């Protein structure tokens, strides 16, 4: 049917099927601001358009519902040519454009508000943005957008390092304009119309053997190009974790296996000319299964006689990590310092408790997407990945080709949070393209993102902690059992990180850990922001708080007495390595005391709490936290800077920007070092053909490793500029220096960078100046912080409301203060969701029951605590670029213990599992006792 619409102010006639969604039509007509991320449920708002004056989800509007003259406005209508709209400018100033996938919808929400409210306030912001999900920012800085639009100063973020020109000062991020204008940025924006569409047939059983599979009928379907099953797929085992080679993860995964190991495992891959044909082909594939017993608990999996999930040859594994498939053990490691038993004997008080956590999903706004094609005989993959180089290496192994035959382009990533550290779909696309020679695209649905992506490990801990009456902690002992699901990606490193980011917070001489990970028939576990640290932090911080309670000492006092400080030697890190011996560290800087003091001041730690209702109990809790800055001895990063003809620069960085602002950081560090303006730099990052190697974005390595590589490249460029400048000025090298805004001078004469470039690039010159930077290290700075929560618990229902939350963190020098602050807010809000309502649920067959945003809730703008503030404090550190440390992952480590301890202080009951859903707390209150663990740690019996 034909309908004449007004699209962004211009008449346009569409002739479409009335059943087709408006989102699809607009997207196909080139409007890339329309993003579909929630399977059409209307729960994310990423496809928002303003239809006749009101914002709607275009995925929920059928073309046939429209009428002639209907007026549609999309985010593309905001900018006038290259001139940004004030809303777009305000978004960039406020630092709310991180991954940018939600940004168009968010901007339209603000536009609708401005069109309808004379003098909008924060409540209006909450109302108008209530239908739009943002997973990165934590929403708080959206309120600054309003202030910028009113020409008011939001008062944040603070600036840092007055001695520096641009580092520590807010700027518009370098990829900001393209993101607010919805220019082609993401994988989905790059797909060509001739691309095959890939779909995957999924296992309806948690554990089964395929006796036979018949694809003949499906293959006869016109438009089906390729079907891959265990019969014709590659036989090489590999691991999907994007980790440094040799990986500390087993090779236990196949592209398509004959054994199905979880509900949703890959049965067959179909590539066809359209989605409809691919779906139809999947229906036509006939499979005969032999059902196998399934285990869903690591405690059941470790029992003698349990069905084996990965009965395989471990000689293919790159590293020994304590794997023993004959007992379903995927990994094991143990170690420590001192003598824990002696420490416990010396203690006046001992706490022994079990703790546990449930599965949560990363839920990036942009589901996993990958587009591949052949170019000049080589495989090109445009991927939304955190690990382009690991991806290239693993794909080369699967396809049995050389790395020089593969080109990986990391597009802008619409949220990763760890889930895109794995090859979740890229192996599928690579295989299809390589086999067919045709372009192919795969995009996960939201349901697939829940089931087939990676989830946070379920972990169970038994903690023993001892302390003397004076508060000295004498022993910390942690035994951990983790559930990796059916495959062992990250099966050692995530569980180890639970210990390596929680034990080293304390100056305790006797510490021990014992980590075991088991295969189960649950969904696949993997990396998620924090990488095990949130689970470990919960267990250790709760136990230490209970020690304080038993000793009658204020929690903060106990923390102050025992927490580490600058200069402390962290011997424990020597044993807490990543599949190999770790490196002991001396703490290069530590802001724990300042964070704790500031947080206590903000929340009014010593002030009495008053409830006006007898059934509402109030309490406060706190937690100290840490993370790392990359993996010393394992990670490496590289960068280049090329001087262009007019004295500007092109940065080529291996580092991967996930929306966190790493590209902007690289430009700022270069701009600061080379004494010239920000706009004289352009950057290309994460393209395996163009930029040098970097391990990728994980382990909080970006600022430190990638940043230092760029810093060293900038220093190399500076050195070359000085050398060339001295030569051209005919003076000695020691007489010259560089000077803002881009000169080499000897004090009397000066040469602009453009003049130096002209002299070097001309026919008589010495050639283009190209600088290099590489960074590897054996030491890394540790970021620290303290989080504080105040809760109200409704003792009638168990409902926990986080009334106040304060997060005070240090990341050395915050190089991008507004973006760094946004990452703290984002991490905190995500983790509050994890604490209160986020939880994947499964039936007794391992089928996920809530693989969507209707049933799995994530925080929205109206869910922020009533009082909510994150602050960055400055700490001087000498290791990173201009003193920078990592900032993002650490933010997820504080909420669970801070809120859990607050619930104890409100109700007198220690929480042992999270999330603290109302039903869980209700049960604890009803039984008036500490709720036992889901599983008894010793017997493995389900409670």
């Amino acid at each position: 049917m034909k309908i004449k619409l007004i699209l962004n102010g211009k008449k346009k006639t569409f002739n479409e099927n009335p059943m087709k969604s408006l989102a699809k039509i607009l997207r196909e007509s080139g409007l890339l601001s329309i993003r579909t991320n929630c399977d059409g449920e209307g729960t994310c708002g990423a496809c928002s358009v303003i239809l006749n004056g009101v914002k709607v989800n275009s995925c929920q509007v059928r073309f046939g519902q429209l009428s002639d003259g209907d007026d549609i406005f999309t985010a593309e209508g905001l900018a006038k040519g290259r001139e940004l709209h004030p809303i777009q400018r305000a978004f960039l100033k406020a630092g709310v454009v991180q991954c940018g996938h939600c940004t168009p919808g968010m901007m339209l929400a603000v536009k609708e508000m401005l069109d309808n409210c004379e003098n909008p306030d924060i409540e209006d912001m909450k109302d108008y943005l209530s239908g739009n999900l943002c997973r990165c920012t934590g929403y708080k800085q959206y309120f600054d957008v309003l202030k910028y639009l009113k020409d008011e100063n939001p008062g944040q973020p603070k600036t840092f390092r007055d001695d520096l020109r641009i580092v520590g000062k807010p700027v518009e991020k370098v990829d900001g304009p393209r993101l607010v204008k919805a220019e082609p940025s993401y994988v989905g924006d790059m797909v060509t119309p001739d691309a095959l569409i890939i779909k995957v047939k999924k296992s309806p059983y948690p554990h089964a053997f395929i006796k036979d599979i018949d694809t003949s009928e499906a293959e006869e379907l016109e438009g089906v190009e390729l079907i891959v099953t265990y019969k014709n797929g590659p036989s090489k085992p590999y691991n999907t974790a994007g980790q440094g080679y040799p990986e500390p993860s087993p090779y236990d995964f196949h592209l398509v296996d004959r054994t199905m190991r979880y509900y949703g495992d890959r049965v067959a891959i179909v590539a066809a000319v359209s989605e409809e044909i691919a779906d139809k082909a999947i229906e036509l594939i006939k499979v005969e299964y032999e059902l196998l017993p399934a285990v869903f608990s690591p405690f059941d999996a470790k029992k003698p006689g349990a069905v084996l999930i990965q009965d395989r040859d471990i000689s293919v594994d790159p590293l020994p990590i304590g794997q023993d498939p004959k007992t379903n053990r995927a990994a094991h490691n143990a170690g420590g310092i001192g003598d824990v038993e002696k420490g416990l004997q010396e203690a006046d008080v001992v706490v022994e408790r079990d703790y546990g956590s449930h599965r949560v999903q990363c839920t990036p706004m942009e589901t996993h997407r990958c587009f591949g094609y052949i170019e000049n005989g080589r495989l090109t993959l445009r991927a939304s990945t955190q690990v382009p180089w690991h991806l290239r290496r693993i794909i080369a192994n699967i396809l049995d080709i050389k790395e020089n035959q593969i080109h990986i382009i990391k597009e802008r990533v619409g949220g990763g949070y760890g889930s895109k550290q794995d090859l979740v779909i890229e192996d599928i696309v690579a295989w299809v393209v390589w086999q067919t020679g045709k372009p192919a695209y795969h995009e996960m649905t939201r349901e697939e993102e829940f089931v087939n992506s990676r989830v946070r490990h379920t972990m169970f801990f038994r903690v023993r902690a001892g302390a003397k009456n004076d508060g000295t902690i004498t022993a910390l002992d942690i035994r951990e059992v983790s559930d990796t699901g059916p495959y062992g990606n990250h099966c050692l490193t995530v569980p180890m990180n639970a210990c390596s980011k929680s034990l080293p917070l304390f100056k305790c001489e006797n510490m021990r850990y014992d980590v075991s990970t088991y295969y189960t028939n649950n969904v696949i576990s993997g990396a998620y922001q924090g990488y095990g640290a949130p689970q470990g932090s919960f267990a250790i911080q709760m136990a230490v708080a209970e020690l304080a309670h038993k000793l009658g000492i204020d929690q903060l006092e106990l923390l102050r007495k025992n927490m580490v400080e600058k200069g402390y030697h962290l011997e424990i890190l020597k044993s807490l390595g990543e599949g190999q011996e770790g490196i002991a560290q001396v703490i290069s800087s530590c802001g724990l005391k300042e964070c704790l003091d500031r947080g206590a001041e903000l929340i009014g730690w010593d002030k009495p709490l008053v409830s006006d209702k007898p059934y509402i109990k109030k309490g406060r809790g706190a937690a100290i936290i840490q993370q790392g800055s990359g993996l010393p001895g394992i990670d490496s990063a590289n960068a280049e800077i090329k001087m262009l003809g007019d004295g500007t620069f092109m940065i080529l960085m291996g580092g991967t920007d996930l929306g966190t602002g790493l590209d902007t950081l690289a430009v700022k560090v270069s701009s600061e070092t080379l004494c010239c303006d920000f706009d004289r730099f352009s950057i290309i990052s994460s393209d395996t053909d163009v930029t040098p190697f970097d391990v990728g974005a994980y382990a909080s390595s970006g600022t430190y490793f990638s940043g230092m590589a760029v810093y060293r490249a900038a220093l190399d460029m500076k050195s070359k500029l000085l050398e060339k400048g001295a030569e051209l000025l005919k003076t000695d090298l020691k007489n010259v220096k560089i000077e803002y805004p881009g000169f080499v001078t000897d004090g009397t004469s000066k040469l602009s960078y453009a003049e130096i470039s002209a002299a070097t690039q001309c026919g008589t010159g010495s050639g283009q100046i190209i600088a290099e930077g590489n960074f590897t290290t054996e030491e890394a700075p540790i970021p620290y912080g303290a989080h504080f929560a105040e809760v109200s618990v409704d003792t009638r229902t168990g409902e926990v409301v986080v009334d106040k939350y304060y997060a005070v963190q240090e990341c050395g020098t915050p190089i991008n203060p507004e973006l760094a602050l946004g990452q703290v807010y984002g991490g905190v809000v995500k983790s509050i969701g994890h604490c209160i309502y986020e939880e994947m649920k499964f039936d007794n067959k391992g089928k996920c029951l809530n693989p969507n945003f209707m049933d799995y809730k994530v925080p929205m703008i109206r869910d922020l605590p009533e009082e909510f503030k994150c602050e960055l404090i400055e700490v001087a550190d000498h290791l990173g670029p201009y003193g920078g440390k990592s900032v993002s992952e650490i933010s997820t480590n504080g909420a669970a213990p801070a809120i859990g301890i607050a619930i104890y202080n409100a109700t007198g009951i220690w929480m042992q599992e999270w999330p603290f859903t109302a039903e869980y707390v209700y049960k604890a209150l009803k039984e008036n006792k500490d709720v036992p663990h889901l599983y008894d740690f010793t017997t493995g019996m389900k409670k």
Partner: protein
Amino acid sequence: MSSEFYIPETVSEAVNLKETLKRAFYLGGGTILNAWTKKSAKKLISLHKLGLKSIERQTGFISIGAMTTLTELFNGGVMKDNYPLEEILKSCKIVSKNIRNMATVGGVLGSRYTRSDFLPLFLVLEAEVVSITSEGERRESVEDFLMRPPSKSGLITNILVKEDREPFFFKSARFARNSNDLPVIKMAVFYTPLGTTMTDLKIAAGGLYDKPVRLYELEEALEGKNYDDDKISSLIGETLNQMAPARTDLRGNGDFKKAVAASLLEDIIAAS
């Protein structure tokens, strides 16, 4: 089955289409039927050209057209000026903006969701649903409407809410996991106060059972009681415990839901 989309120009045309076509659905705002996962809805009869958007006073009633969106309802002058039904307007505001701008009053009724922010309110208000079938116009209470199989519902044209029944007490409360969640439990209470006594009491719940229902046992137990009676809480708890088990689902087991329902009811009555 191939997909079919129909755009009737009149109510009778729409009704005839529904009678003629097998397994066709009336399409209102689209927040439910147009969700991509609802692939079973292959035949749609769109109602967008039928009008059905007016909010107007009729004798003794406010009539709300079935195609009125929740945003239009919230902004509707008649509702705001002539009938103090703040609870309905408050519930409109609970729904996220994108959904509020699309979802219609008719869709709210037609969905029959137990976890509804609106149906318990309409139940205690004893609102009426007007619908058209091939046999003509039907006017029935929301309660009767909810008892009817969806296939026999007819085309909802409007809902009628009684006007001006002061003095009255009308309030609702919800419990949800987060701000954009449908309520786990929604409770609504309407009564006529005589001093501190609750008379002509009506209580309804969403989420407790498979469909939103009036809780007659509770109404009977609390009818004529003083809202500030110390024993109200225990009476609510005891009565709920004697009632049929509440449904257990992803959002909690039946005991927990009853505890939530009790607390919401206590809070509502405490606000008297």
